[in-house]
């Protein structure tokens, strides 16, 4: 007989980063009861790591900006695989969501006339990112957290969900454990929102923390929901690479937004050498004009360092591969060079990028106001995820909603920097609103005790084995393998090998052994996370094999060009009746006439 605590809510939100918190706030303000599950302590989720800013066309710095430009930038960046309806909603609603944060106490940096200051970022035509130095994510999560705690939302900290509970097709709750004592918890809910973030932990070099094991992706998939765009995994161009212990830690795009340039070992500014056609008419081809853009000259075009992340990351990889990399296998990111342009550069850099200054000083013994940083690409963000309805954020299963990184559609083949934080706000809010509506319109479903018993048994198996692999060893093997074969440059041969290895790793993961007891036992937590990591990895590999072209973040050296035919569909992944992963092409719906016109006008 199972032993667990039971909780009942109208809406259960799984994940307490920006999207989860925003969803919880919205749902509770609709007058329904809300439970919120955090994998860590409240306020520690990955949103806290976001540095650069929130993209919203408020036009505070450049009055030419508006939702249409933001919408077009998002689609161009996503190589037109985006869900255009989501891109439209996002561009229109982001400014309101940013102002809402201010009404809840957020203090963004200001313009001369006292408005919210906006900064330049890759792929955004005008300065668009509302920010607080280089700690925007902290400001955002703390603001949401400090607003949410007065809303009557019940928070379950350090709690992990192992399975979603179902009544027929409908999702009616979740089952998991709390970390402290290892006790099980059952949650009944009329609607469930997944806001669990990304999958970066499946890769060796990653900016993601231990939490980002694809939980939402896997929970939804196992419950029968569809995943889309799983081949599109963003490698952020600038992660720290030296010393080894900091490898992968994020260096904000804000460094380039403030004038930082990329150099190879010969001191050459290599980004000038390859500007894609789609961006030729908005990118400067000389140093002088690029600097004028940074200084706010409206007639200047932006420097090539502010091209989209997929492109910049690939250019860096090319430099390294062709022998022009830095001593530790990266390239240089230099902000100190602006001392040639402004007299108080040291003070300016420390004011605009205090976190980066502190981090490099403390962890790498480098003063970024004086010398260049060594950087290289790091696994950063999952564009793909749970397929949702654009307006309601409901997945393909009734009662199951998704928002934030674990949801998909907005970003297409590549996400623009800053569009993640605005995504969390816009679609977190919508998920909360529509989940509350669903909860009001539907009675609670039935909970299947058998499903709970089976899950409990499964979860405790690692303790029952006499010996076996360490869960950490399996995790490391997975990370090495995915990094090597399904990373930033892909080909068929390596990915087939990866597929085979995933099969072996699944076997190993089913036989891991955990010592000790259930009280705060990271070995056990890792053992249970492995399944999610493997599902996400398999989905990524399967979709990446299927897409035989290079587009956005997905680069195939055996198909290095874009194929117009491949631009007509998204790839959808779903579990079939016998438990196997299947994939199919889903045509992208014809874009609405008025939106098509906007895109044409902005070309």
């Amino acid at each position, binding site marked *: 007989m199972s032993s667990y605590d039971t909780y009942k809510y109208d809406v259960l939100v799984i994940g307490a980063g920006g999207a989860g918190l925003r969803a919880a706030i919205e749902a509770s303000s609709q007058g329904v009861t809300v439970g919120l599950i955090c994998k*860590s*302590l*409240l*306020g*520690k*989720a*990955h949103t*806290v*790591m976001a540095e650069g800013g929130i993209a919203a066309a408020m036009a505070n710095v450049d009055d030419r900006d508006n939702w249409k430009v933001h919408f077009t930038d998002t689609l161009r960046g996503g190589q037109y695989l985006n869900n255009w309806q989501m891109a439209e909603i996002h561009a229109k609603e982001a400014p309101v969501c940013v*102002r809402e944060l*201010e*009404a*809840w*106490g957020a*203090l963004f*940096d*200001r313009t001369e*006339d*006292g*408005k*919210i200051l906006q900064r330049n970022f890759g792929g955004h035509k005008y300065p668009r990112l509302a920010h*607080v130095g280089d*700690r925007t994510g*902290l*400001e955002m999560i*703390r603001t949401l957290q*400090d*607003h949410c*705690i*007065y809303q009557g939302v019940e928070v379950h*900290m350090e709690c992990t969900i192992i399975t979603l509970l179902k009544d027929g097709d409908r999702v009616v709750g979740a089952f998991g454990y709390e970390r*402290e004592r290892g006790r099980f918890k059952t949650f009944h809910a009329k609607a469930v929102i997944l806001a669990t973030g990304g999958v970066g932990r499946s890769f060796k070099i990653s900016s993601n*923390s*231990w939490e980002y094991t694809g939980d939402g992706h896997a929970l939804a998939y196992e419950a029968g929901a569809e995943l889309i765009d799983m081949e599109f995994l963003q490698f952020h161009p600038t992660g720290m690479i*030296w*010393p*080894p*212990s*900091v490898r992968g*830690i*994020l260096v904000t795009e804000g460094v380039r937004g403030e004038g930082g340039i990329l150099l190879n070992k010969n001191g050459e500014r290599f980004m000038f050498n390859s500007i894609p056609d789609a961006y030729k008419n908005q990118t400067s081809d000389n140093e002088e004009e690029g600097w004028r853009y940074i200084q706010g000259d409206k007639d200047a075009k932006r420097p090539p360092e502010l091209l989209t992340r997929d492109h910049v990351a690939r250019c860096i990889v090319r430099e390294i591969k062709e022998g022009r990399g830095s001593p530790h296998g990266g390239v240089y990111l230099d902000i100190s060079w602006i001392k040639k342009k402004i007299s108080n550069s040291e003070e300016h850099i420390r004011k605009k990028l205090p976190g980066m200054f*502190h*981090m490099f000083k*403390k*962890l790498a013994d480098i003063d970024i106001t004086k010398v260049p940083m060594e950087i290289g690409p790091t696994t950063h963000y999952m564009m793909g995820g749970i397929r949702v309805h654009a307006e309601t954020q409901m997945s393909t299963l009734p009662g199951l909603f998704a928002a934030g990184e674990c949801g998909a559609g907005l970003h297409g083949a590549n996400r623009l920097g800053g569009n993640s934080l605005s995504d969390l706000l816009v679609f977190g809010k919508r998920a909360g609103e529509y989940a509350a509506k669903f909860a009001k319109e539907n009675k609670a479903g039935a909970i299947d005790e058998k499903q709970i018993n089976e899950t409990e048994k499964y979860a405790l198996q690692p303790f029952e084995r006499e010996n076996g692999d*360490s869960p*950490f*060893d399996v995790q*490391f093997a997975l990370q090495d393998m995915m990094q090597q074969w399904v990373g930033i440059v892909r080909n068929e041969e390596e990915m087939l090998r990866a597929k085979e290895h995933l099969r072996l790793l699944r076997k190993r993961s089913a036989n891991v052994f*955990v*010592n*000790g*007891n259930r*009280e*705060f*036992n*990271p*070995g*056990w937590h*890792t053992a249970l996370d492995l399944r999610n990591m493997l599902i996400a990895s398999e989905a990524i590999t399967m979709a990446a094999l299927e897409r035989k072209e290079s587009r956005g973040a997905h680069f195939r050296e055996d198909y290095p060009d874009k194929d117009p035919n491949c631009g007509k569909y998204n790839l959808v992944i779903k579990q079939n009746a016998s438990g196997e992963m299947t994939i199919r092409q889903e045509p992208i719906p014809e874009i609405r006439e008025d939106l098509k016109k906007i895109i044409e006008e902005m070309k």
Partner: protein
Amino acid sequence: MPTATFKIQRGDASIGTFEDYSLEISEGMVVLDAILLIQAKYANDLAVRWNCKAGHCGSCSAEVNGIPKLMCMCRMNELPIDKPVLVQPIKAFPLIKDLVTDVSWNFEVKKKIKKFKPRKPDAADGSWRMAQEDIDRVQEFRKCIECFLCQDVCHVLREHHLHERFTGPRYFVHVASLEMHPLDVEDRREDLKKTDGIGFCNITKCCTNVCPQEITITDNAIIPLKERIADKYYDPLKKLFRLFRSRKRNS
């Protein structure tokens, strides 16, 4: 590569022991790297909290050689490795297991602080105008990552266990960020004096010294708050005035 020995506190409140682990130290390594390596290699069940590993989230607070620190920002080359590196959980809160303590009290305390209450918007679109100079000092407080190292080192909590009567430096910083917020119109002075117990702080600046975000907690947050309370309750002229008024009312 040099080898270091780590003496790590293991067990829960009932059985506290120290266990030794030896590890090769590589270039640039931080204490958290060592702890995670030990966890993966020798002690899968070693309990520790961490998230960002870059000093942004405030999860990996512990005491290294007796000093409260974020383990992710504590470089091995700052520590003498000719003797064992002592790693213990923070002390001001109940131990759960190994390096993990029950910090839930902090989250409860925050809920009791009056929430942000803005003045009416300045513009029709619901937005406000603020000068950067006016928000600089509040932005300093908002850098807080809630690592609770200031709470850990504060003797009112650590030695005297006045958790019921004193909210601690973290929450004085929080209240300061609200009280000095240019838009906020709430008054929290009475709570500060009566329920938050700011009077227990005798400004030894221990909190300021351990803050990984380099927030000048004592000088910029606590002392100005104390001054505001003094203004409200202890201004001799106002006191006379209040006395006079209450007499008049009573007569």
